[in-house]
């Protein structure tokens, strides 16, 4: 199997693939990986034990990090990529895919995460940005990237840089779904507006969105993003997850909402089941019973602007 930017032929087997034609790190396998996560829940975990709880609950992947966003918020200071030992411990603990976060623009943290063998890098506003003008040029990596977006223009700028998956940002670590709702409605609403425009209008729309015109034309023609769109930031209950799915998400990230709740095992499982049966209120009702305390949460009106993460990223 050869690297796609190398040119050497390697071993082949009889009546089988010509190994010299195998290519790793293609946009197709990067996006395809995200396709396999659709309809699923990706859970933040900070220990191997939590990773096993998430896997047992039916998570499609885990996000390995040192502190969940609620604790990053509480502790303050600079939030960085996790310790490689901690990531290795989680990779070793589960058989499902493992994601990890790099700071916005911190291409060396991303290089390190790729070398550790994580399955997806989240270039995340939850960590303290390392570059106030530039996101990582993601095309050069074999590992795929997911990036946050608050609106369609931001999502398309990230795709232009090589992201293979988008998540709406929400406001991580608050247990409050209102920002996730705002960002999902913004992205899907802007897509619908593009789809109604004639071609002349699309050039002006691209300028207004500050997005590459060819991507704007693609979205207008197909009526959706060319990659998987998940939701993140503030999802705390099975109903939150089902609401995001009904708003058009392909799946959900749950950060602090599980392991900051009273009964993480039960809540993790319930959110997985509600995500699968998001359009069946009877199932969502059934799995919502007896989950104990949800995380307390933060009213966004009381959160100063400088403490909001969604504005990070450009």
């Amino acid at each position, binding site marked *: *199997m050869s690297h796609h*930017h190398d040119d050497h032929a390697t*071993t082949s*087997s*009889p*009546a*089988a*693939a*010509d*190994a010299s*034609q*195998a*290519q*790793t*790190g*293609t*946009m*197709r*396998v990067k996006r*395809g*990986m995200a*396709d*396999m*996560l*659709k*309809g*699923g829940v990706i859970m933040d975990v900070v220990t191997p034990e939590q990773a096993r709880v998430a896997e047992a609950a*039916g998570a*499609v992947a885990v996000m390995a990090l040192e502190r969940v966003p609620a604790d990053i918020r509480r502790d303050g200071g600079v939030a960085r990529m996790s310790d490689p030992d901690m990531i290795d411990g989680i990779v070793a603990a589960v*058989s499902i*895919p493992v994601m990890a976060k790099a700071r916005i623009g911190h*291409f*060396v943290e*991303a*290089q390190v995460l*790729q070398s550790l063998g*994580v*399955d*997806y890098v989240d270039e995340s506003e939850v960590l303290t940005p390392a570059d106030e003008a530039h996101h*990582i040029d*993601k*095309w*050069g*990596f*074999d*590992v*795929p990237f997911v990036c946050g977006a608050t609106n369609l223009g931001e999502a398309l700028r990230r795709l*232009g840089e*090589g992201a293979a998956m988008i998540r709406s940002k929400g406001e991580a670590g608050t247990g409050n779904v209102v920002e996730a709702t705002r960002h999902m409605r913004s992205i899907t609403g802007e897509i619908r507006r593009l789809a109604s425009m004639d071609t002349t209008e699309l050039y002006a729309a691209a300028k207004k969105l500050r997005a*590459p015109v*060819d*991507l704007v*034309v*693609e979205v207008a023609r*197909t009526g959706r993003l*060319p990659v998987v769109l998940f939701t993140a930031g503030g999802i705390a209950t099975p109903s939150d997850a089902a609401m995001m799915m009904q708003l058009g998400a392909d799946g959900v990230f749950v950060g602090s909402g599980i392991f900051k709740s009273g009964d993480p095992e039960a809540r993790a499982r319930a959110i*997985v*089941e509600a995500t*699968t*049966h998001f359009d069946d209120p009877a199932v969502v009702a059934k799995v919502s019973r007896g989950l104990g305390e949800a995380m307390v949460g933060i009213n966004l009106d009381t959160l100063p602007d400088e403490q909001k993460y969604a504005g990070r990223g450009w």
Partner: protein
Amino acid sequence: MSAARLPGAPGGGRVTARAASAEWVPGQRLVADLRGEPGADVEVAPDPDAPSIGVLALQGDVLEHLRALRRSGARTVRVRSLEDLAAVDALVLPGGESTTIGKLLDRFGLLRPVRARIDDGLPVFGTCAGMILLSDELDQAEPQPLVGGIAVRTRRNAFGRQVDSFDTRLPVVGIDGGPVDVSFIRAPRVEAVLDADAVEVLAEVEGYPVVVRQGRLLATAFHPEVTGDGRLHALFVGMVRDSGG
């Protein structure tokens, strides 16, 4: 590493060259007609006598299978309940996370009913996670819920992690027109065929089976549904028609 520029680092033209030479550049559809609602790209309505093929829709790339089946002339339906299952002539187990799909099959009471229909002759096509679910055994210590039905022992993530996922062109026995365009994504492979009389191996990579067929069950380690090469779906729809479905 000394000569090559590290990914993401400033300077040099490699990254730009890669973006421009990749199989997808911004604004150019990766695979035409892959997304949107199933059937939107199919101009001719499916024949009402065409077999009704269900795609298990608990988690995974359901939409891609619905579209590929439509293009092969089948009628399609999402399967999430016993009622859905009872109504289909055949079933696809899609790509996704096999542990998640297996657990949801079990929790929602579908695992045994799917197996019962297989034992009654239901044609089933599994890709990647679907191949894992159709395997009689897994090459791992941790138990996970399986449907079973194909006498193979399969190893999950057999080619490595996501950075090792790859696209390739693969000759498949019984598929005309040259190698099939496929993506292996954290893919499994068959480590051992447990019943050589029952299981046909239709393709291999590095000496390991990656396409197997046992009676009316077909399984691939890779994802034909994400590439737009519809020949494996056409093969399966042909199997369903031959079964009288």
